[in-house]
């Protein structure tokens, strides 16, 4: 196998997905779906990992000493030390740059997936998948990935005992969700014709 076809095989879907995304972004409704879903997922993620919580009516900002090195300290597989505490009255936010970055990455992927799924539902012919329900299947990985952020929290809420296998599964959940989301994104974008989309 030569290198060129492999690069093309990997690169083509990415370029195509980029084009679809750029074209779709011109549509206000798609942009709205993307923005709302991304923001909603990010907030949910931050609440689930404990970085965003109800406030105590106080207002203020606290920064740890040596925030740059502290920000690199891990508190979990995909969570990091918070370096700034922001009290905004009703809301308390612990800003951990690493955790926020992971959350943002997942959120953008979920947002893109659901924006593309929205296209599939609204314009199934453009997506070339025939029916809206088939297009909506692409939302499944996005929904499944919801467990990535709040899996361990569920154990406490539901009172479920953690087994070694379950804990290992939780460790792998965020990376797995990211891979699934990227795969789903490429899959659904492949079926969208950017030219037909701009004409729709």
């Amino acid at each position, binding site marked *: 196998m030569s290198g060129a076809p492999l690069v093309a095989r990997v690169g083509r879907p990415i370029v195509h997905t980029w084009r679809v995304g750029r074209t779709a972004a011109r549509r206000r409704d798609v942009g709205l779906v993307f923005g709302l879903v991304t923001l909603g997922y990010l907030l949910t993620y931050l609440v689930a990992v404990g970085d965003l919580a109800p406030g105590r009516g106080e207002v203020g900002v606290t920064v740890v000493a040596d925030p740059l090195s502290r920000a690199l300290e*891990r508190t979990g597989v995909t969570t990091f030390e918070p370096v*700034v505490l922001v009290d905004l009255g009703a809301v308390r936010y612990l800003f951990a740059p690493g955790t926020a970055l992971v959350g943002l990455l997942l959120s953008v992927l979920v947002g893109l997936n659901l924006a593309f799924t929205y296209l599939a539902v609204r314009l199934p012919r453009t997506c070339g998948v025939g029916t809206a329900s088939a297009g909506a299947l692409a939302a499944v990985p996005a929904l499944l990935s919801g467990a990535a952020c709040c899996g361990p929290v569920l154990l*406490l809420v539901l009172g479920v005992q953690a087994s070694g296998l379950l804990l290992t599964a939780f460790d792998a959940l965020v990376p797995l969700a990211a891979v699934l989301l990227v795969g789903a994104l490429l899959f659904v974008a492949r079926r969208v014709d950017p030219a037909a989309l701009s004409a729709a």
Partner: protein
Amino acid sequence: MQLSRRRVLLGTAALAGCLGRPESSAGGAAVDGTSSRAATGTSGATTSPRAADGPPLSGTGLPVEWELETLREAVVAGGPPKDGIPSIDDPQFSSAAAADDRLAPDDVVFGLVRGDDVRAYPQYVMVWHEICNDVVGGDRVSVTYCPLTGTAMGFERGATTFGVSGSLVNNNLIMYDRASDSRWPQVLATAIEGPFAGRSLREFRLDWTTWERWRTAHPETRVLTESTGYVRDYGRDPYGSYNPPGGYYTSEFTLFERLYRDDRRPTKAVVLCSRTPDGRVAFALDALRSEAVGGGEVGETPYVAVYDAALDTGYVYRNPEGVEFAPVDGAVEGPEGRSYPTAALPLDRQYAFEGMWFAWAGFYPSTEVYGRV
């Protein structure tokens, strides 16, 4: 994994009783007349520890009822990596008056008195750090708290510090010392892995009580603040609540598997537990609260537990002569009508700490237990 009693090793050390501190543990004793054995088990140690580098060790090993290999096999990753739950290494303290602003009267604190130095470590801060490496009364100590087993225990640390390994056994915090990286389950106070495997720490009592009670008993106390070097959502307990009691702390489930299931008491019932020279014993704290004085036998030796209403805690005494004690007005009346403070009966006081029943019974399946919940 439910380990059977067949895998239990009643490993104990010879009676020490030589540390000279009534509230410090003095090591274990031979059990049931079986041959005494230090808790070395299958140590897995490959190098000789340099005692000067590590934490101060107990002269004799504390009793361990499981083979170390069995304990190592039961270790699970708790989620956070090593130091993912950061210990407090530069603790800051405030006056009691300043602490009134952030502590409610019924909030849980862990009290420590060493000489003239009196300190309180609020549970709401410790739940995020589990270990506070401190210097109290001129002594380098570690104040430790495991939320999942409800145990607060003090250890001498020497020149080293302790950190949170991220692993658990029987749901209990496994500490590591930063000199040798040996692994020390908190309740056992004995290393199960690393150069110090089989060796035990010097431990001392912390009083699990409430802020109002501690402040009344010790108005001069200093109180650990939220200036820990880390930012956390202090005030929110990720596991539940003690004020009012709820969540994990009162539920029947454990987050991870336990070493051994013993249904003689409810899972999370709080017991006052002690590794005595005659064996292990637990007194249900609720029963002690209502009866003020409780008794029982360990092996064939009588023991007495008394309730301290001022701090809502209890003390365990070896009572080989079976002397009768009765509660009177916050104190205890002994022979010939003499009155004694609950913390100073004319008997050999044993190191005792409070914990959840499942945790104590899991580590020490041979334990006697007294007092109905």
